[in-house]
Structure formats: C-alpha cells, structure tokens
C-alpha cells in the first residue's frame, strides 16, 4: 500500500491505496466523487478530465500516487457557494449536453482551455481543443456554442 495526501476541491484528503489505484478510482471509489466518469481505457474519451495543479489531465491515465501532494479540482468543486460556474451555466443555456456522461470532462476541459487561451475563442480553436473529449449525443454543435459563450462569461 502507498499513502497519498492531496487536496481535492479545497479539502485535504489522505488515503492508503494499492499503488495500482488510478486517480479516477481514488476520486470515485474512495472519495465518492462520482461526477468524474470513465468512458474508455485508452485515454481518448476525456470523460475523466479533472484539474491537477491547474492543468487538465485524464484522471484515468494517472496513478493516484502520481498526484500525491497535488491540488485536484473535479466537476463537483467547480461551482462556488452554490453558484454555478459560468461554464456550467453556458452548457445548460446552450443545450451543450444530452445524456450528461461526457459533460463533466467537457466542462473541465473547457475551463482550462479558457484559462490557457483566453475569453475570445473562435469555433475552429474550440473544435481543435476538444480533440481529447468524445461526445456521442450532441454532434458537438451546441458544445462548441456553449464553450464560446462560457468563455465570454468567465471574463
């Protein structure tokens, strides 16, 4: 067993885990934060994207022990004081989700995208930056709209 201590959504948590535990398993099984999803096993779908030290990463392709000491933010930690994050609002307002399964990863990816590339995002940029997030429901049309709107609202 290996012990890990990390900050998840502002709270410090410690756990003893089998080294083969993935970050996403730590979040889902140990901390019961089931908003982060697993949709594939080859690191393509992006349903598991969370922020580790401010960077979007695939939590299914990171061992929990690799994240030891890190600050992790998941979809559950995005809304502050009961108020939705502007990107969450934008997804709802623009019908950027259907079944909702890819949505947490999409939103986490989108928020980091805005942090990196700013509030004015054109359609081409958004589509390229979504390379690592699969959605089977929306055809991406409304996700792209939602991210453009959410980016503006994050100003």
């Amino acid at each position, binding site marked *: 067993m*290996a012990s890990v201590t990390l900050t998840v959504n502002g709270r410090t948590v410690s756990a003893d885990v*089998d*080294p*083969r535990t*993935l970050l996403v398993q730590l979040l889902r099984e140990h901390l019961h934060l089931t908003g982060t999803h697993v949709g594939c*096993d*080859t*690191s*393509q779908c*992006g349903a598991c*994207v969370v922020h580790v030290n401010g*960077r*979007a*990463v*695939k939590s*299914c*392709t*990171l*061992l929990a*022990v*690799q994240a*030891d000491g890190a600050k992790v933010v998941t979809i559950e930690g995005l809304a502050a004081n009961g108020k939705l994050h502007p990107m969450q609002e934008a997804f709802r307002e623009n019908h950027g989700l259907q079944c909702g399964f890819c949505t947490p990863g999409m939103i986490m*990816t989108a928020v*980091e*995208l805005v942090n*990196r590339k700013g509030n004015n995002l054109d359609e081409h940029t958004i589509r390229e*930056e979504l*390379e*690592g*997030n699969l959605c089977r429901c929306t055809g991406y049309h409304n996700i792209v709209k939602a991210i453009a709107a959410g980016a503006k609202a994050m100003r």
Partner: protein
Amino acid sequence: MYKFAYHKAKNVKDAAALLKKAGDSKLLAGGQTLIPTLKLRLAGPAALVDIGGVKELSGIALKGKDLVIGAMTRHAEVATSKVVRKAIPALAALAETIGDPAVRNQGTIGGSIANNDPAADYPAACLGLGATIVTSKRKIPADKFFKGLFETALGDDEIITEVHFPVPKSAGYAKFPNPASRYALVGVFVSRNGSDVRVAVTGAGEGGVFRVAEMEKALQKDFSAKALDGIAVKPRGLNSDIHASAEYRAHLVGVMAKRAAASAA
C-alpha cells in the same frame, strides 16, 4: 493492472539505482502510453520507478547553439514555450499536435523518445534536427539512437535526461494524423542548418523513423517544396494497416514533405 511495487525517485541517480535494483521494472515518466498499457494488462512489470518528482529533469533553455529540453518537460510546455517558439517554431508546432490537450499536459518528451513508437512525433524532430539525446550515462546522436520499432540505444537502467536540438536556420513539420488515434499516419520533419539538410519521416516506416536521402539531396540544392516535385519514396518497407496501405503512406510522405518544406522555407 497487475500488481506492482511503486518507487518515487528523488533524482536521476536514485532512479537509475532503483531501476537496477528492482529488476523487471519500468520507468514512469508522464505515463500516457505506459499506464493504458498496464490498465489493459498488456504488460505487468514488477516495479515502476516514477521520475515525476525529479525537478532536475524539467526545463527549457538555450545553451550556445542548442535548444536544450529536459526529459520530463511536458508537451504542453514545449508547445507554449517562448524560447522554443523563437528558436525552433516547428518543434513547438509539432508538440502542439501530440495527443490532445490533457495528454500534452502530462506526457513528456523523454517518455516519447524512449518509447520510440513508430508513429510518434518527437522521433521525427530528433532525427530531423540531428538532435543529441543525453542520458544518465552518455550522449547519443539521434542517428544512432532510434534502432527500429520501439527500440532505442538505451540500456536497461539508462535514463534520458535531456535532448539537445541544434537550432536550425529553418525547419518545418507536417503530419497527416491517423483519423482514429491521431498518431502520425505519416509525419515529415525537414530542417536546414548550414549545409546539413535533413528529412525525417515518422509513422510510415516498418522500423520506425527514417531519413530520406533523395529528398535531402534535392533540398540541399533548393530548399523549397518545389524541389521535391517528382521525388517519391517506394512503398516497400512502409507500414500497411487498416488505415493506410504502404502505397498510400508513400504518397503521403511526398505530400507531407512538401508541406513541411513549404512551412519551413
């Protein structure tokens, strides 16, 4: 995943010692290839040695005529680094095409090179720029480093520490991604550094990355896309799979080489 012992290395020396001691072990850099492989139980090393916490392995700096990139430097850092963008913009552009944003935030240049995936991007840059791969033991020129499919000159407990890229006069990279995996179906890196002109191809060769002498000769005379007119690589020795036949790859090598040259010129 099969069970494994996990070791966190403090520094390069420590990592090398741990690798040697653990026997059937694997070095864990960014883990973007290794972890999926472990998850699918297509490998089951007894131990992993994590070099994620080794600070000395990270960083980007211009040293003399070389751009030096630490082995644990993430693709995203290379893609956005002002130093890289100024010295070798083609290298920053190449880094920006690897994987996807989340993979680029975690994957490292050292991990990519050590893995020598026949469809990875960095090997093309190393070979195409005539880089030197610095390890815990020695310095290896790129021409001698890549030994074929997933094989490198690295020894079992040898760790890449830095990659030295000579800053070229100009360079370009063009990639045709596999529609599904987005690895290079064919990627071509071209560079010109004085009289040294290089054309390196990834994704296409059965044995991994390779140089194309005929194209290099033509570009030496005239470093332009037009100079490559009529030069074709032969399908023989090129990969063939459900995504692209050897013939199609051969065609793409020509097209990508021209695009790379055009972006460099």
